[in-house]
Structures are given as structure tokens and as C-alpha cells.
């Protein structure tokens, strides 16, 4: 049970990090030669 809660928390933390990454990807506009 406790282990399941820990996994849930870890997955939610990764979801938060992924959401922030999406945020930065969408509104950041650096020029690069790799597009």
C-alpha cells in the first residue's frame, strides 16, 4: 500500500516536470539551426 502511494507520488512529480517542460517548449523561441 505504502509502496503504491510512493509510486503515485513519483508519477505525479514526473507529470509536473513534464508539464513544465511542455510549457517551456511551447513559449520559448530560441533560434537554432537544428529545426
Amino acid at each position, binding site marked *: 500500500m505504502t509502496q503504491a502511494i510512493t509510486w503515485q507520488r513519483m508519477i505525479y512529480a514526473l507529470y509536473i516536470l513534464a508539464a*513544465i517542460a511542455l510549457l517551456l*517548449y511551447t513559449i520559448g523561441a530560441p533560434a537554432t539551426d537544428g529545426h
Partner: protein
Amino acid sequence: MSVASIILLLLIPSAAGVFAGYATGGRLARLTEIRFRASWLLLLAALFQAAQYYARPVRNLLEHRLGLPPLALVFALVATWLVVNLLQWPTAIRLAGAAIFLGAALNGLVILVNGRMPYSPAAAELAGIKPGLATPKNMPAGSGTRLGLLGDTFPVSPLHEVFSPGDAFIVLGGSSLIALAMRGNRRATSVLTAGGGEQ
């Protein structure tokens, strides 16, 4: 999205935020205390963003048939997501979100008045970018460019990338948001506000 963009926009802010969070006594598990609402707006914005580069039919449909500039759509979706979430975050995290919002607004403004994000050819040369290169999001600045100072003007030579003042706010805000959220809502708020006023 290039490898350089992934490093500059995703890995560096995330890693810096996690590092700063741990350095100031935070824990990754405390990220779960922050609530992100309406994440589908971000996902939709990311899909439209990706479509600009990799799905020309979608881009043509939005731009020519529906008259919706894809970049305006992306920024509008993200702005809506930020407003929805900013209002319910504790003060310190709200400040980090506001820095992201400011960065988005600066980038959005320059894109709005120029059609795309202009980059300084001189800075691009320093960063080792091919001269005159244009993408769905970027174009070289010229004599007709407006608000050029807010465009991509800071070269990052090792990554072959040029970033804007708006990008700097976005990266700083993103890192701060992660670090503050790792400290936990209540602690982040009480430490960074003058009177320790909490939500």
C-alpha cells in the same frame, strides 16, 4: 525541436530547478503538493507547436483555411493555462509563474509585430548558425524588424542557439517554479514573502 533546444529549454531549467530545490532543503516528492489544472491546454499548445514543424497540412489548415496563426494559438492556449493556474498557486510560486508569463508575453509581442521571432544575424554568426536561416518560428532580423532588442540576441555558442530576453525569463521562471514547488507550498510562500503571508 533540435537537440540544442531540448537542452536549453527543457533539460537545463529542469535540472537547475531540481538542483536548487534539493540545495535549499526541498524534496522531489513535495512537487505533488502543487496542483496543475487544465493541463490539456498545455498538451494542445504543444501539439499545435509540433504541428508547425512536422505537420504541414495542419499548419495550412489553421493558417490559411481557418485564418488562425499557429503561434498566436499556441501563446493564447499557454496564457490561458497560466492564468487559470497562477490564481490558485501560493504567492512565491505565483511569482515564478508570473516570470514565465512575462517571458511568454515578451516573446509573443515580438512574434506578433513581426510575424515570427527575429534573431540577430550577428548573434547567430557568433553561435554558429547558418546565415539567413528561417523556420516556422524564427527569421533573421532586418531593417524592417520591430522591437528587435526583444528578439533572439544572446548567442549560446556551444549549443548553436540564440535566445531572447523572454526566453531568459521563461527559463528562470521554470527553474524557480520547480525549486519552490519542491520546497512545498507553505514553506516556499513563507520564505519568499516579506511578511510570510500565506495563501
